[in-house]
Structure formats: C-alpha cells, structure tokens
C-alpha cells in the first residue's frame, strides 16, 4: 500500500523558460523520428529518454517499467519566440497598461501605493472585489497616453487576431514582433503586475511569449501499431514534427542571412504551428488538418467538451466492479433487494479479509474456485501478491493456506450490498443500495414498487450495478443509501415508493365491500404475506364462515394506527366528504382496523403524500414501512391472482343507447360549428377583445368541440358498469384515466398541432379530400370515432399528426431540461448544512441562516410542513367528532 496523501491545493501558473530547460531530459534537435531500422533517433521526437512505450522495457531516464514511469519532458529551443495564443488577451492587456519605454504601470507612484494597500486588504476578505479593483486599475492605466514615470508618449496598440500586434506610432502602424513584445514585457516590475491582477512569481508576462517549447513525454502521445505493422503516430506528434521542421528552416534561413520577408514568413508559419499545437479551434486560424482532411485533435481539444478530459474523464470516471443488463420485475423480492444473475455474481467480487471468524466460510469460497457460484476469483496474500484462482490446479492447497491477514476476492452472494442505478440519474433516488439475491436467469430483478424512483419499466430498460469495495463504502450504503431510506422523497415530503398498477387494483378489489373470503383464501393470503398470528373472528358465520377483505388487511396494520381521508374513487357520483359514506369512498382506519373505505391510489399509491404509506413509514420508521410494503403488496397480488383481473373489448364498447346519444352530441356540435362559421361569413360573429375575427372563430369552434368530447365521454362512462375492469383501473388510479376511456369508448375528439386545429397540408385545405376553404370540423382534424369504432383513414392521418407533435415535444424537452438541471446542479452542488443549521458555501459564507426558515429536512416533513399537528393531537386524544 502506498502512502495516502491529501492534496491541499493546486497552483496554476506559466512555466518559465528556465524551468522548462531544467525539467527537460533532452533537447529535441532533429525533426526525423525513426531511422531505417525503425528505431527512434536520439534527440528526436520519440527519444527513448522521454519515457517507455512498450511493456517490458525499462525507462532510460528513471529505470521504471511502463506502469510506474510517468514519462519525461524534453524541450525545443525556438529560433525566434512566438506568442502563446491562449495568453494573447493577457499579453495585450499588459502591453497596453504599461509604458512602452520604461515598462512601468502607467499610474503615478502615489496612487500606486494607495491601490496596492487597498488590494492587500481586499485579497484577504473579498477576493471577488480584489478582482474588480485590479480590473479597474488596469483599465485606468490603459487610458493614460503619457507615462507618469518617464513622461514618454504612448501609442495605441491594436491586436490583430489571433496573434499579431500592431502599434500605431508616429510613422504609421508598425508590426510588433514577439521579440519586441517580449522585451517590453520583461521590463514590467513585479509590484506593478500584482496591481493588475497577475502573480509574477507564478506567471511573468514574458513567459507567455514562448522561447522554449516543452516536448511532452511519449506516454502523452503514444503511437499505435496497426495490424499491417505500420506505426501510426498521435496527432500531437504530427504537430510537433511540423513545429520542429519549421523551426529548423527558420533557424537555417536566419543563419544563412535570408531576406527579411522570408524569415518573417517562416516566423509566421512557426507561429501558426505553435498556435494550432495548443488549440486547433482558435477563431480566425484555419485548423491544422491530417492527411485525410480530418482536423487534428491537439491539446485544447483533448480537454474541451463533453467527452474531453474534464467532463469525460475527470468529473466522471469509468469504474470496475460494475455490471449492466436488462431489468425485469420480481414481486417476490423485498423492496430492498435486487435479483442478480449468477453469471454476474461470479464475475463481480467483494474483497474480504480473512479473520478467525470467517476463515471457514472463505475456505469454502476458495475451494469452489472461480467457476462455481459461491466461489472466489483471487486470493491476495499478506505480502500483496495476487493469486489468480483460474490458474490454480490445487485449490485445496490455497484454501488450506489461508490465514488471517489474507484477502479473498469472493463472489457476490446473498446479503451483500450493492448500488443499483438507472440513467438518467435525475435525482438521488436514481442510485440506491440494494441487498443482493443471486437468482437464475440473465436479468437484474427488482421489486415493482421501486419502479417510480428509478422511473423504470420493463420494455427493455437496462440498469447498472456497482459493488462497493471498502468497508466504509458498504457501511454507508447500508445506512444511507438502502432503498428503505429513500421511501420518502426530499422533493415533496411524501413517499415516492409505493403501489402501482395491479397493486392498486388488487388493494381496491380486496378492500371493497363485496369481497368475502373463505378460510382457505384467508390462509392463502396471510401465508403469502408473512403474517403469523391468529385469524380473527369471521365477519359472516352462516351459512359459511367468511371474512371480509378489510378484516384481512387490518391484520397487517400496526395496532395503534389511525387514518382518515378520501379515497381516490371519491369523485363524481361516488364522492364522499366524511365518514357517512354510502359509496365506501371514505377511508377510516382506527386503532389498526380498516373500518371503512376502499384502499386505492390515494392511500397506497406511489408519489401520494399524506397517505397510509406515508404515515406508516413516517411514524413507525423506514424499516417498518419497508416490511409493511413487502408484506401487504404480496397480499394484494396474491388476491388479484386468485380473483383474476383482465380487460376485454366489451369493457370499452358502449351500449347502443350510449352510441346513439354520443352521435347526437356529435351532430349537435357540428351544427353549432356550422352556425359559427355562418355567423363568421356574414360578419356577425362577436370578436373576442384583442383577437382577430379568425382567431375568435377558431377559439369558439375549439370550445364547442372540446365540450362535445367531454360530454361524449361523460355519457360513455355513465353507461359503464362500475365493476367494469377498465373503469376500475381508471377510478382507483391504477392505470389510465377517464380521458383514455373516452377515447376508447366514445370518441377521440379534436386533434391539435401547436394548440390549434390542424391547418397545414395543402394551400387552403388539409387534405385533397376536402374542398378548398373548408373549415368544418372534419376538414380540420376532428375525429368523431373512438378506438373501438375504428378510425377512418383521414382520421388516422390527423391523429398521427397530433401524435407526432407529442413525440417531437418530448425529444426537445429532455435536452432542454437536462441542460437546465446540469446548470442548477453546478451552481448549487457545493452548498451544505453546517452544524449550526445554516446553509453555507465551501468558503463558509452563509446562504441561509436557518435552512428553509425552519431547519426542517423536506424528506422528513409532512408534505412540506414541519409537523402535522393534527395527527399529533389525534394520537394523544383520539378521534373526536
């Protein structure tokens, strides 16, 4: 084990030529890379002293092998200095702020010391203001046209992007060459630099004009050996060769005393190569191309963007000990569990240190070897040697040899804790810890109640699994990340984990008044849900002993639990405001007995605040809440299996009487629309203030047609049997809503694109089936048929147009909201609660003096409020009427 060190800070700066030379292991002198034998030239760009490339070799410089050798820098002496394109702005600023003659900051000494004093004080307390001061001083100095120190006249300097400077002197504009610029920058005094925001110890401005170019180690730009045996060099190497070649030519030209124009051209070419070596996307510079025409990926490109070094490799890292596969449901698991395929369990390992207490078990793992399930893949001895069990013939010997101090990397097995994740990871419940359950099959299995937090379904979703490798990580996973710790969402202070779909249908059917159960059924349900205890007195004794569903559900409720509230079905004709309820749509639980009301989405659903699940988890703890859900959900499923639950065509086919009424409504609506159109044509239509006549007509027509659909839906639902399967699902909130039923049974109604009736297509009509100028309902996307009736071809077309808009909308929205969330997180991620319940930034400045004005954790709150006082009072004095 290497020594662990903590990085306290990172200093940024510019390398000085002296440092570059000092660090360098060799000066690069030749542009040739390999000789005829394919060996790298000494003093070339692939000089072996720059580091090892091939495994097995030893580094000439440091003696390490490829794993430990970090690579070593070389250097290249430039024949003429060039500007570093990344620093032009700073060079420009310093040039303008200082005197061209004496190099002093163009501010008088008095003011200078005054500002310096102020800066020193600001730096300690207000770094942001210090920045403002330096900006101010710099700008002030730039405006001065006569040096207050030496009195010499100043000239305007222009920056010709990207890297040339032009001084507008008395004899007209003159190009400032990097040598001139460097000479000027060298004169600037340290004290002056500080005042315009530079730190001369770490970054002297003249260092921004490059005289010596560091040559990065080979490990930064490895060459790859193609199958054909041809070496392919990295883009950086190509670029460096260009630089060296141009540099050589420039030096030769100078030495040969070539005409100034030629030297200057070569100088500019060198400048171009150095610029693109650092950044190949500088505006105004044509990107350097590979022979194939592809732009080179040089230094800046490696860092930039989503797949760049920063966002791609540093802020997000690839990890070992992870797995990914398709997910599928398993209602028999606990909410806390995840089903892991044996195949996966044999690859993912947990390092376990051998002790006196686990040595027998770990021996068993080692004996099983890497190919049998509860086995092991590696054994690490106290000296740190790693034994790969795949190549061990005599596993027995290894097992015998185990002693405390060894580490066994054993297979994942039941009871291990792992992290489970589904992308996009939009909130913290997207990664939760689960307890492993190794199962046959090739998919990850998860309980259906944890679908909402992951936003998972089983139409081919894949999820990721990670195995924590340290004891701290495992402890944290168990205490903080376990699914049961996330039943209550911090977003709104209510459960995000809860019943969905069949759990809700099942709960409703089991708890409805008509459900009576025989002894066999009761035993089946209770056995399935892990109940151990007496069966209560049956609700009906004769002619046959029968129990009500509510009685059975009550057995799983805590004995002192109370709850009152409306059920989801309490709407429309089944509405109930209090306990005097004929429809059984008002839920009353008193002392752990479900006395009345049916259980449905309001009481058991996911994302339902102040529900039965919410109060149970909040008042009896997460662990109890989890157990409760594990058990009661199993009961509901067992019941729905027993009873049977399906959906048929006749569930959504309205009787002929209803069809007739719906047709009447459609006819009526059409008539109204034509009346409106008539009025409009005659100019009698009353316009809506602030709208044109056409817009008013459209709005009115839309209203009429929307009403028509609503009325049709109402009629269709009126004729539905209350125990109709589809209707049950919609009413209880298990799946679907009244609108879905309307569309299936009555009619689809008006299709819209951009909130208007469909108008695009041909010139003055949507389709060639209509007369030009027809603005009647059918011609503008009104669909009078239902899914049961079937749509006409024209209606299908309009419906598809409306459907397409929805798809486009979703696609646009995900990218927009994704970016917004990235920005929000980036802005807020450093905030945390301190021990005094203030909200602070890492610099210890206070954002809120008491978090949220009451210091309450939203996930522990009752739907936002700190405490539900009514429930406390009720707990003490009971339910008083």
């Amino acid at each position, binding site marked *: 084990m290497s020594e662990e060190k903590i990085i306290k800070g990172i200093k940024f700066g510019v390398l000085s030529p002296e440092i570059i030379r000092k660090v360098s292991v060799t000066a690069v002198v030749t542009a040739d890379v390999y000789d005829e034998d394919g060996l790298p030239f000494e003093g070339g760009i692939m000089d072996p002293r720059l580091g090892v490339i091939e495994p097995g070799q030893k580094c000439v410089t440091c003696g390490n092998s490829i794993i430990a050798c970090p690579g070593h820098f070389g250097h290249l002496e430039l024949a003429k200095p060039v500007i570093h394109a990344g620093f032009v702005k700073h060079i420009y600023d310093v040039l303008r702020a200082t005197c061209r003659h004496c190099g002093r900051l163009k501010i008088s000494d008095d003011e200078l010391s005054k500002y310096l004093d102020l800066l020193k004080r600001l730096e300690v307390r207000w770094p942001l203001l210090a920045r403002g001061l330096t900006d101010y001083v710099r700008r002030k100095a730039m405006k001065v046209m006569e040096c207050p120190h030496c009195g010499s006249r100043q000239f305007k300097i222009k920056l010709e992007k990207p890297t040339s400077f032009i001084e507008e002197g008395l004899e007209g504009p003159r190009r400032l060459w990097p040598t001139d610029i460097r000479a000027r920058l060298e004169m600037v005094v340290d004290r002056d630099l500080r005042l315009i925001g530079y730190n001369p110890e770490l970054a002297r401005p003249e260092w921004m004009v490059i005289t010596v170019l560091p040559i990065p180690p080979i490990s930064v730009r490895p060459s790859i050996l193609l199958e054909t045996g041809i070496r392919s060099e990295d883009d950086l190497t190509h670029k460096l060769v260009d630089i060296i070649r141009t540099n050589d030519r420039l030096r030769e030209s100078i030495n040969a005393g070539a005409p100034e124009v030629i030297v200057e051209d070569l100088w500019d070419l060198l400048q171009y190569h150095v610029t693109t070596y650092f950044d190949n996307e500088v505006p105004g510079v044509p990107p350097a191309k590979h022979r194939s025409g592809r732009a080179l990926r040089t230094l800046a490109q490696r860092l930039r963007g989503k797949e760049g070094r920063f966002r791609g490799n540093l802020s997000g890292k690839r990890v070992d000990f992870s797995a990914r596969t398709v997910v599928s449901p398993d209602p028999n698991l606990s909410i806390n569990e995840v089903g892991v395929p044996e195949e996966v369990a044999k690859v993912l390992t947990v390092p376990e240190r051998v002790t006196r207490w686990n040595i027998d078990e770990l021996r068993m793992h080692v004996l099983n070897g890497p190919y049998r399930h509860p086995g092991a893949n590696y054994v690490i001895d106290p000296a740190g040697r790693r034994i790969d069990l795949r190549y061990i013939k005599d596993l027995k010997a290894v097992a015998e040899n185990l002693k405390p101090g060894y580490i066994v990397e054993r297979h994942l097995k039941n009871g291990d804790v792992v992290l489970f994740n589904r992308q996009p990871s939009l909130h913290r419940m997207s990664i939760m810890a689960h307890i492993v359950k190794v199962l046959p099959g090739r998919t990850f299995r998860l309980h259906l109640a944890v679908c909402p937090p992951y936003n998972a379904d089983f139409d081919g979703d894949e999820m990721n699994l990670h195995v924590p490798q340290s004891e701290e990580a495992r402890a944290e996973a168990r205490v903080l990340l376990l699914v049961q710790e996330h039943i209550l969402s911090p977003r709104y202070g209510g459960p995000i984990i809860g019943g969905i779909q069949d759990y809700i249908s099942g709960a409703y059917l089991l708890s409805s008044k008509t459900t009576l159960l025989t002894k066999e059924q009761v035993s089946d349900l209770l056995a399935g849900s892990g109940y151990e205890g007496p069966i209560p007195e049956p609700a009906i004794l004769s002619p046959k002993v029968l129990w009500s569903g509510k009685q059975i559900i009550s057995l799983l409720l805590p004995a002192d639990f109370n709850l009152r509230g409306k059920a989801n079905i309490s709407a429309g004709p089944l509405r109930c405001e209090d306990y005097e309820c004929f429809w059984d749509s008002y839920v009353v639980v008193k002392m752990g007995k479900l006395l009345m009301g049916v259980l449905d989405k309001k009481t058991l659903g996911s994302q339902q605040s102040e529900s039965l699940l919410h109060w149970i988890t909040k008042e009896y703890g997460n662990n109890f809440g989890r157990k409760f859900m594990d058990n009661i959900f199993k009961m509901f499923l067992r019941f729905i299996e027993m009873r049977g639950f399906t959906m048929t065509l006749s569930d959504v086919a309205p009787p002929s009487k209803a069809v007739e009424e719906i047709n009447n409504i459609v006819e009526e609506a059409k008539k109204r629309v034509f009346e409106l159109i008539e009025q409009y044509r005659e100019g009698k239509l009353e316009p809506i203030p602030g709208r044109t006549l056409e817009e008013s007509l459209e709005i009115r027509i839309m209203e009429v047609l929307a009403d028509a659909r609503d009325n049709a839906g109402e009629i269709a639902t009126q004729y539905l049997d209350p125990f109709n399967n589809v209707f049950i699902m919609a009413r209880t909130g298990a799946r679907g809503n009244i609108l879905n039923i309307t569309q299936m049974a009555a009619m689809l109604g008006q299709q819209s694109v951009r909130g208007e009736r469909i108008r695009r297509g041909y010139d003055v009509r949507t389709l060639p089936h209509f007369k030009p100028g027809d603005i009647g309902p059918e011609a503008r996307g009104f669909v009078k048929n239902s899914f049961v009736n079937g749509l006409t071809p024209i209606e299908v077309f309009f419906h598809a147009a409306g459907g397409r808009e929805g798809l486009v909308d979703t696609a646009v929205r995900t990218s927009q909201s994704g970016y917004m969330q990235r920005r929000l997180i980036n802005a807020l991620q450093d905030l945390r609660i301190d021990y005094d319940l203030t909200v602070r930034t890492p*610099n210890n400045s206070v954002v809120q003096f008491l978090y949220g004005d009451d210091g309450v954790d939203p996930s522990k709150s009752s739907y936002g409020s700190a405490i539900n006082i009514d429930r406390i009072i009720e707990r003490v004095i009971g339910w008083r009427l």
Partner: protein
Amino acid sequence: MGISESELLEMLEPAKQVLPPKIFDELLEKLKGLTLTKDELSKIVELTINEYLNVLVEPGEPIGTVAAQSVGEPGTQMTLRTFHYAGVRELNVTLGLPRLIELVDARKLPETPIMVIYLDEEHRYDRDKALEVARRIEATRLENVIAKVDIDLVSSSMVIDLDPEMMIDKGVETDDVVKALSKVKAVSQNVSVDENDSNRIYVQVPPNYDFMKIQKLRDRILKIKLKGIKGINRVIVQRRGNEYVLITDGTNLEAVLKVDGVDVRRVFTNSVYEVENVLGIEAARQALVNEIHNVLEEQGLDVDMRHVMLIADMMTLTGSVKQIGRHGIAGEKTSVLARASFEVTVKHLFDASARGELDELKGVAENVIIGQLVPVGTNLVNLAMNPTLARPK
C-alpha cells in the same frame, strides 16, 4: 376541566423555546379550539417538540444538490408550450419549462411580460373608473387612433384622419395628437388642423424629402406615443372577486407605480429584473420564489418550497440577481477546476495560469476531479487528535 389561556401559554413555554414561530402559532391556534386535560396537553407539547427535533436537517446534508435535483427532475415532465393566461383569453403567458429556464437564466425581459395592477379604493369597484386608470397606463400610439393617413406628393404633405370612435375609447383629444406631432423634429413647425374638421390634421413634410423618406417618416410618425406608459402595449380590465383589476401586456413597474389610482402595494409584474431595480434585492428574491413556485404549481408538480427558496437565495446572494450558469453563479466560483469542468474549459485554465491562481479544492467538483472525498455529507466530519493526550499514562 378546561385550561385557561394563560395556563395554556405557560404550558406551551417549552415549545416556544424550540419551535419556529410559524409552527408554534399553528399549534397554539389548534389547541385553543380544544378542551384538554393537563396530561393530554403536556403529552401533546412533548410529542410536538420531539417530532420537531426529529425532522431537523442533519448537518452535512448536501442540500444544494438536493434542491437542484428536486427542481430539475420534474423539468422532464413539463410542457413546452405557451398557454392562455388563467381567465383571460386575450393574453398568452409563457409557462412550463421555457418560463423556468427564463427565470434561472435571470433574463432581463420575460418572453411574455405581464403586469397585474390592483386599484385603490376609489377606482376599485367601478368599471368606468378602472377604465380611466387603464387609459392612463396603456401606451397609445398614433396608429391606434387614426382612420387613415394619406401622402400628398404634390404638396408634399401628409393628411392624417383621426378615428373619433377610437379617440374616445382611448381618451385622446386632437390637441394631444398635435402636441405629440410637434415634438417630431422634422415636422415640428408644420402641423395644422383642418379648420372644418377637427379630426383631420395636415403635416407639411420638408421639401427635400423624396418619396422613400416620406414613407419612412410616416412609419415613424405612426409609432409616436400619445399617452400612457412606455412598454405597456395593452391593458385589459378584468373583474376579480368584488373589484376590477388591470392586466397588461408589457411591463414597466417604475412608471406604473407613479400612476394615480393604482394600489401601490399590490402591483404585480412577472419581470424579476424590474422588481430588482425598483423594489430591491429582497423583493427580487421573493419574486423569484413566487415565480418559480407558480410555474411548478401550475404544472401540477409538487416541489417543496425550501428548494425553491434555496435557488432564489443563491441567485440573489451577492446583492444582485445572478444567472444560474456560465455568466452567473457557476462562472464566479473561486475554484478554477470547478469552472473548467462546467463550461468553456480551456479559457478558464489559461486565465487561471496567467493570473497564477490557487485552487484550494474546497468544493465538490474539484475534489471529484482529483479523486478525493467530497466535502459534504459524511465527509464533513473531521477528526482532530491531540497526540499528547492520546498517550497512555
């Protein structure tokens, strides 16, 4: 039985020490309506205090990330479209995701600026009086009150016919028009009213103007403001409860506050920028909270107020409204690595090295980058050991 109010207050004293005022008041209010024994009361007080202490946040909780996620996650469920303003069919209002983005971007002008102006006691109950205020506010341009404009090329003049109906509707007199016209430099001296028809105005165009120039002049004249407030294009009078309110398209808080008949305390604008400029940073914070909360609420998304408040607090922390993003909070972080890992990576690195900056690695992003533990949550705890004390005796 029964506990007197003074006794109640006395017994609630321990709760008062612990609970925030709002919760304490709620408790007091609820208890006042009940008849309780002393035992029950003390039990309730005890439970309430315990409950409150139980729901407090734990130190180290990375509450910023939680807030960002809680607001960002429902973003995927929001609509993209602009909707009709509740109750008014005349106006559209940006809602949903575009509005939320607009708010966290701290844009100067909302896509659909809107004001809701309540009126003072005098003008509140009468539609005509409300209309009167509305006229004072609505910016009326010349083009709103004319019937037609003719260009007479022979005499190089313009003939403006005013629409008497619109003049009454907008409350404009011919004199107002003339006054406004005479402020236009090119024609200031040459405006005259027809002697027979007070609704006809002649404008003499300078003789050197060619046809194109006259056309341009005409367009400019049509846009001149006759009365009202700049930026407010339309005012709609609407009944709300038992009073009339004005709803405007366009916003100009500063000017509206100065208009007679406006209830200054209840003027609303959806421009956070104006609120900041006119009413100050605290008001801007509250406006942000309200606006973000409204957007979420309108979409039927449950998000705890605490998250919204934290975002607003962060945006207003420095004393001016800062955008969430590159030009605001994220761009002003002290850490180089945090800035570089967000956006415009290379520029930040170059600037940092030129200035010789030091990254002290105090934030989350920096520590992720260098592979150290992040300074929130369980890692906020540090152990300090005094080796001299630890030595066994």
